[in-house]
């Protein structure tokens, strides 16, 4: 054994300060802070009484306490978890903030009553909504997704087709653009009276309103995308023997795809914004309908809980759209 390694061994075994420093370096300190914050949320929830009972306080404390326990484990083990560990470390500051926010939220609402019932709800109040209304909320999610997907899909198909025609054909553009510019800024809700007259069922009318909200931005951006395609691409295509169909399908469509995706993102947000209104039209279920129903009865905790679900669904769909965009527009990398 060499002299150097002997002194190293001796250092580890005989100097506890060096040893402690080594252990401390292996610990993810942000994880410890996050665990403390989450534990505080759990402690506050169980140890202080609610000003007005909300229910599910025990469950919420159990969940946050479990979160704290997991965070302690992660604080010790995160450096051995590879890429997952790196992601967790990246979100460390957020995990701390969430713990602090939950504690603060509990204190200001349920515990001290500064933000009173029914206008505000503590986190365990929202949890109680999910626990007690599970079945109804699941049905509402199903109904809303059915309405949204029918409206969004039909809206973007029609909007896309119209956009390609408007961007490609001078005649279409002459007649269509002024109309589109006129109806584009009109809020989809303004069409409710007409839709009642034209559509056989209120469900069809709701689908139409969602379709309109998602289709118009897609149409506008697709047409501007098709119209702004580099003319030289068409020259190349024509020179190589392409007919109009080929120019549209193989040049105009792929070249305008970046614009189309901007339209799809806008359409997605607009369609969610009008969902609540669209579900005013004689719906019996649906998240929008549920929000209105609960607003009428001052069930604001239920409203917040439902809004959270809608936000989560919207964020999930945005994420899916991003994945689709990255797959289809991989060729753009290096351009951006």
């Amino acid at each position, binding site marked *: 054994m060499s002299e150097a390694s002997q002194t190293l061994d001796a250092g580890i075994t005989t100097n506890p300060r060096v040893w402690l420093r080594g252990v401390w370096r292996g610990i993810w300190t942000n994880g410890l802070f996050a665990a403390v914050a989450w534990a505080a949320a759990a402690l506050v929830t169980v140890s202080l009484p609610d000003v007005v009972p909300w229910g599910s306080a025990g469950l919420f404390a159990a969940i946050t306490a479990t979160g704290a326990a997991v965070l302690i484990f992660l604080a010790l083990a995160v450096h051995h978890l590879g890429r997952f560990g790196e992601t967790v470390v990246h979100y460390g500051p957020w995990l701390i903030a969430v713990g602090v926010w939950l504690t603060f939220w509990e204190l200001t609402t349920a515990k001290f009553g500064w933000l009173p019932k029914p206008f505000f709800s503590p986190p365990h109040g929202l949890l109680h909504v999910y626990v007690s209304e599970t079945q109804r909320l699941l049905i509402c999610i199903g109904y809303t997704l059915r309405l949204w997907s029918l409206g969004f899909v039909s809206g973007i198909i029609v909007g896309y087709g119209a956009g390609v025609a408007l961007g490609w054909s001078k005649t279409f553009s002459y007649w269509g653009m002024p109309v589109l510019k006129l109806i584009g800024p009109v809020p989809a809700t303004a069409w409710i009276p007409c839709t009642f007259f034209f559509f056989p069922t209120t469900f069809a009318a709701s689908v139409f309103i969602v379709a309109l909200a998602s289709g118009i931005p897609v149409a506008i951006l697709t047409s501007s995308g098709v119209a702004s395609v*580099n003319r*030289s*691409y068409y*020259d*190349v*295509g*024509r*020179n*190589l*023997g*392409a*007919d109009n169909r*080929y120019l549209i399908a*193989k*040049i105009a469509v*792929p*070249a305008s*795809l970046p614009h189309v995706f901007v339209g799809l993102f806008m359409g997605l947000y607009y369609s969610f914004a009008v969902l609540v209104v669209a579900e005013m039209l004689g719906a019996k279920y649906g998240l929008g309908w549920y929000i209105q129903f609960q607003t009428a009865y001052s069930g604001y905790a239920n409203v917040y809980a439902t809004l959270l679900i809608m936000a989560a669904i919207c964020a999930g769909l945005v994420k899916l759209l991003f994945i689709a965009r990255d797959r289809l527009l*991989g*060729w*753009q*990398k*290096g*351009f951006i």
Partner: protein
Amino acid sequence: MAPGHAALRVARPDVARSVAVTVHGVSHAFELAGSHLPVLDSIELSVAAGEFIAVLGPSGCGKSTLLRLISGLEQPSAGTISADGLPINGPDPSRILVFQDPTLFPWATVWNNVATGLDARGVLAHERWRVNAALDLVGLRAFARAYPHQLSGGMAQRAALARALVNDPGLLLLDEPLAKLDSLTRLSLQAELVALWRSARFTAILVTHDVEEALLLASRIIVLSERPARIKAEFQFERPYPRHRDEPELIALRRRILETLGLAT
């Protein structure tokens, strides 16, 4: 015909090779914001099948317009242009224009870009080997699956050449195709162009502002005047390929051409 056999020829032997071009009394003008802008004035030009000619002229004089008219992408205001005696009424894959920018489709791989002409005419399924042969011809086989943004300027222009050559053009219209490349890449591509032309024997019309490039590649040089462009002078010369820029005959000719352009010192 086996692909391997076609190492230097994308063509099938039964396809007609080069095209002769006749430009007769061609004038052309643009209508820009209400004003009449004549760009070409009574151009008379005939190019024999298999000839390599270069068109020189001051910038903005209408050289590119002449190529667009010959390609058929635009119709002249007056006069006729014919290919092998038949009037040109529209673009055709037998006469291909190669632009200063490679104008590759950024959403398609190099292979798919090169395949465009065959795909557009619906013959790609039977003639996939020609795409590979064209890529071999310009040395880009290894980059078949790359996207245009991954190519250097010289590689992109070679891909654009392959996209033209895969269609067996009888006439290649080159609109300053090397102007934007760095000088070393330009030199190597000039040599490649000569080699391609000598093996495939298409007719070539090269528009350039580089006198030296014209002298290295062409056997006849047309000098155009300021806009509206007329043919100001013609220089015919026979030198064997590959040429060197320091050949005394070419240096003497270069001086005469620069004088014609009003640039001699």
